[in-house]
């Protein structure tokens, strides 16, 4: 860790020396000019880089991360960086600039939080959230402010702190609000149950209105002087609160409607869908800020409001983009905030220490938070269906973290007006550090010790989905029957309204008609897809047919892409499978086994070499390579399967084995050669066809292996190359008979000549063949089999009318192959037909060509790396 910090220290030190040089104006003009040109973006980029690298390094140590929350480490890192900067520069260059914080850093976090807010959970607990956010924050603010003033009067706080009642109330207001950034950072790692999390987090978001209003009201009071405050001003304060909170919410909702409405029409311009979302959500924030309304409220409600419609309207890819971009931005903003908090602390010029003030503040905010929570919960529990337990209250009190919002607000104070600003800054920093570091560090053990119910990261099964929906209807009906206009009654009303008007307005027509349970239904689809895959795999071992949603599986893979792929290439079975969540214990052994199967059988992922030219189609260039790989693999597989089956079956019968293997191999060659047509182009087509055929077989074999373990690779396209579109995975009989059908079917489209030429392995040049292949292959195939192989080749060669003199490695060997001979050979082989089922149909090709057979047999051998 130390080494790491040192490294960054150097980076940032250099950074600042450069910056310093530009300020002092040395003689090196060109450099100077260039620096000032790139300065701002450069510094920003460097900071982002430092923050990102910090995250990476921090997550290197698993054990460390489970104990220490990230925010703590980031603050510490910030402290160290700040110290380095201070030593290098004698002056602190960087601090958390309130403008930067409120205009850029905070919105990214709030936007992410709002957009991905679990809205059902949020509204289920809205009463509690509002209570804590409004009443709780007011209570904290007033109590802290008054008590600090009292303590000041009592003489505990030093006289140097020049502050009256108004100043302390102002300070109380800014220090009392629970901070969304800190709460999110700490609670994300604690994994308390959703209800607890949403209450604390929701409170931290919604208390913004209270904080903003109190802050502004007190600042104006401080400006005019406490003596000049009139009674009307207090009422103005209350009115201002209503305007700020309701106005902020309205602005957010209006933008949500606009955004949802816009995404209705983006079908042709999918590429900018995510941009609209970012822009409008951000505009909601800025607009609220413009009218000095509560920006956080605005953004939160914009996110919550638009989410349902936007998600339904935009494409799956946009959804993924929005998700990742938002998470990336939020994560980096959070990192920067904490680092800068640390750096800002190392600035002697800014702050003044007063032990009395700091100690009192710490005690007061903690005590009043606890008192507030207990008191409010007592009231709330009279009305709540699910009462908040004592443990919940402890966690809620303890989770009242203060953070960067308080810091930014205190830095924003006018030093002229508020004489004690420096003391307040120092106190705020200490409070923030204490809550984030000490409470953040201890909350995890506390939660563990109290046995607070943790969140379960489990997606609902379809049964739960359906039945819970039914429960909602039942409850609404029961409330109607019992004559209670309760929560369910209103929710039902809202859903009716939403369905009849809002959705009609905001959802695409195509989406609207399916919209009622569209989300659920989509999930169902995904699960169906998985289950198909799963079943397919498990029919082999049909004793334990398991569905993904059954209890035996702890979780679902994140499979958004599956549907996407299934939808987009309905015919081809092309799956991009993402990680399954860590599934500890139990199936490890089975997994490693399947892993080996997969590693042995999967093709290399398709690469998109020219992806920057077009995102929409795949280039043909690498097709060739892939097909070759497919071909090689199949041949190798075949050999291996011969090896294994015959080893197993005829272990005692070793003498026979050799002969048989020999026969099989020659038969195999026959299969290939028989497909080959006389003329030159046709030869090529035939070759490609043969490859295709084999590829098909490979496909079905691969499917077998694949289905049993569908979700190992993240972001690696596992490509099932299937050419014919008619089959669906369900219909296709697993295993080789599928290939049998395919072989017979004439509809295996031969590629057009040019394409075929391109696809020809030997045209592509053997040089591209990875040299490792041959080595690998020889390793796999036992020596005696290799001998058998070679023998079979030579026997075939001897049959060919003009014996080919070239050495076996040469790729372009071709030789004549009289048709009659072939038939002879076939009859000789007929004994083996039972075992060779899959290959048989190919042995009876359409009318045996009379003569002039050109066979790239040796080419095949070399392809197979033999």
């Amino acid at each position, binding site marked *: 860790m130390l080494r790491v910090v040192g490294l960054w220290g150097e980076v940032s030190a250099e950074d600042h020396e450069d910056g310093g040089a530009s300020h002092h104006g040395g003689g090196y003009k060109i450099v100077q000019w260039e620096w000032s040109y790139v300065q701002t973006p450069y510094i920003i980029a460097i900071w982002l880089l430092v923050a990102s690298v910090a995250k990476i390094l921090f997550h290197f140590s698993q054990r460390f991360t489970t104990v220490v929350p990230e925010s703590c480490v980031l603050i510490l890192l910030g402290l160290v960086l700040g110290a380095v900067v201070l030593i290098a520069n004698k002056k602190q260059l960087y601090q958390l600039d309130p403008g930067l914080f409120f205009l850029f850093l905070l919105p990214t976090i709030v936007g992410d939080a709002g957009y991905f807010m679990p809205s059902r959970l949020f509204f289920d607990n809205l009463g509690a959230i509002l209570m804590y956010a409004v009443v709780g924050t007011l209570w904290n603010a007033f109590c802290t402010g008054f008590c600090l003033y009292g303590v000041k009067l009592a003489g505990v706080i030093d006289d140097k702190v020049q502050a009256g009642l108004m100043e302390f109330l102002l300070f109380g207001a800014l220090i009392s609000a629970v901070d969304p950034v800190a709460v999110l950072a700490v609670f994300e790692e604690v994994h308390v149950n959703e209800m607890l999390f949403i209450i604390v987090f929701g409170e931290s978001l919604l208390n913004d209105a209270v904080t903003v209003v109190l802050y502004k009201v007190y600042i104006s009071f401080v400006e005019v002087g406490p003596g000049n405050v009139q009674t009307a001003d207090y009422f103005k304060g209350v009115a201002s609160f209503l305007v700020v909170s309701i106005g902020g919410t309205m602005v957010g909702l209006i933008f949500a409607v606009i955004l949802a409405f816009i995404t209705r029409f983006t079908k042709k311009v999918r590429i900018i869908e995510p941009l609209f979302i970012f822009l409008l959500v951000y505009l909601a924030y800025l607009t609220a800020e413009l009218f000095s309304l509560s920006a956080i409220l605005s953004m939160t409600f914009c996110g919550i409001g638009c989410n349902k419609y936007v998600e339904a309207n935009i494409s799956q890819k946009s959804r993924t983009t929005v998700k990742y971009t938002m998470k990336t931005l939020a994560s980096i903003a959070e990192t920067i905030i904490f680092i800068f908090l640390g750096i800002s602390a190392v600035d002697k010029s800014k702050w003044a220490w007063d032990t009395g003030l700091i100690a009192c503040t710490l005690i007061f905010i903690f005590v009043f938070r606890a008192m507030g929570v207990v008191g409010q919960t007592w009231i709330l529990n009279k*009305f*709540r*269906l*699910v009462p908040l337990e004592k443990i919940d209250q402890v966690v809620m009190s303890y989770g009242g973290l203060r953070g960067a919002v308080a810091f930014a607000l205190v830095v924003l104070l006018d030093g002229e007006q508020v004489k004690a600003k420096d003391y307040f800054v120092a106190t705020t920093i200490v409070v923030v550090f204490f809550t984030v570091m000490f409470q953040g560090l201890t909350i995890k053990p506390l939660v563990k010790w109290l046995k607070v119910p943790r969140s*379960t990261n*489990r997606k609902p*099964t*379809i*049964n*739960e989905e*359906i*039945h*819970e*929906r*039914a*429960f909602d*209807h*039942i*409850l*609404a*009906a*029961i*409330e*109607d*029957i*019992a*004559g*209670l206009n*309760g*929560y*369910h*009654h209103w929710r*039902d*009303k809202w859903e*009716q309204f939403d369905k009849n008007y809002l959705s009609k307005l905001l959802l695409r027509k195509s989406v609207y*008609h*399916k*919209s*009622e*349970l*569209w989300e659920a*239904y989509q999930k*169902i689809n995904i*699960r*169906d897809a998985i*289950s198909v895959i799963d079943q397919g795999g498990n029919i082999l071992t049909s004793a334990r047919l398991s*569905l993904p*949603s*059954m*209890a035996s599986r702890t979780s679902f893979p994140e499979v958004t892409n599956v549907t996407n792929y299934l939808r987009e290439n309905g015919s081809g079975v092309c799956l991009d499978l993402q990680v399954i969540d860590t599934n500890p214990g139990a199936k490890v052994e089975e997994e490693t086994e399947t892993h080996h199967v997969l590693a042995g059988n999967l093709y290399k992922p398709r690469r998109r070499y020219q992806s920057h030219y077009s995102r929409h189609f795949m280039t043909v260039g690498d097709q060739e390579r892939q097909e070759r790989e497919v071909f090689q693999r199949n041949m190798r597989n075949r050999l291996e399967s011969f090896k294994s089956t015959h080893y197993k079956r005829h272990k005692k019968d070793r003498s026979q084995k050799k002969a048989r293997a020999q026969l099989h191999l020659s038969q195999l060659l026959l299969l290939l050669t028989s497909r080959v047509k006389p003329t030159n182009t046709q030869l090529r087509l035939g070759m490609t066809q043969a490859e295709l055929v084999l590829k098909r077989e490979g496909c079905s074999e691969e499917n077998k292996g694949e289905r049993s373990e569908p979700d190992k690779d993240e972001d690696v396209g596992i490509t099932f190359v299937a050419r014919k579109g008619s089959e669906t995975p369900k219909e296709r009989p697993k295993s080789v008979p599928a290939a049998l059908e395919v072989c017979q079917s004439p509809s295996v489209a031969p590629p057009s000549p040019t394409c075929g030429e391109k696809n020809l392995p030997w045209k592509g040049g053997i040089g591209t063949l990875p040299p490792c292949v041959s080595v690998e292959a020889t390793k796999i195939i036992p020596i005696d089999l290799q001998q058998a192989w070679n023998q079979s080749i030579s026997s075939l060669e001897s049959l060919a009318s003009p014996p080919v003199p070239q050495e076996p490695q040469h790729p372009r060997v071709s030789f004549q192959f009289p048709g009659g001979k072939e038939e002879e050979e076939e009859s000789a082989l007929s004994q083996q037909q039972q075992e060779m089922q899959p290959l048989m149909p190919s042995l009876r090709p359409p009318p045996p060509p009379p003569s002039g057979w050109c066979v790239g047999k040796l080419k095949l051998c070399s392809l197979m790396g033999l």
Partner: protein
Amino acid sequence: MGSTSSTLAKIPNAEDLMQETGFTPAHLVRLYDRFKVLDKDKKGFLTPQDFVAIKELAMNPICDRIIGAFFTSGGETLDFPSFVRILAHFRPIDKNRPKEPTSPDPINSRSNKLKFAFQLYDQDKDGKISRHELLQVLRAMLEKQVTEEQLESIADRTIQEADLDRDDAISFEEFRKSLEKVNIDHKMSIRFLR
């Protein structure tokens, strides 16, 4: 409504009902008022028509099922005690109530809540949700927004997932198992006003 407010004394067998359902006197009085409002003709009992007349209920996609659930015991009438007993299913489970091992499951127990939901699906009362029965409920809940084909695939999927003994139907035991991880107390309770 408010003017005709009744007292506990007017309700027959109030004590027993309270004992049985766990409602407080205030609850009971309130429900009795509601009962009388629903009972427009002052028959002293409710008929399915009285339920159908509830305006809000008409919007509910599975309202006929729910109304049906009130009239399970056969017959077209529902007296006040039965009315209260059915509503009592939806009381939140009270944790503080001392558990007497001898007493039977309270009406609002987890399994009774589930049973209520189960019988909404199980129309022919054979103790199993067949594919057909599931389809009917699904069709009602999804309305016309999905095709029949999709509905069927959902139904198939649902049964497949819950069906442990492979009889292509969901028994109550399987129903309960499939909802094992759901907090039924939270999801099947409403707060009765005093």
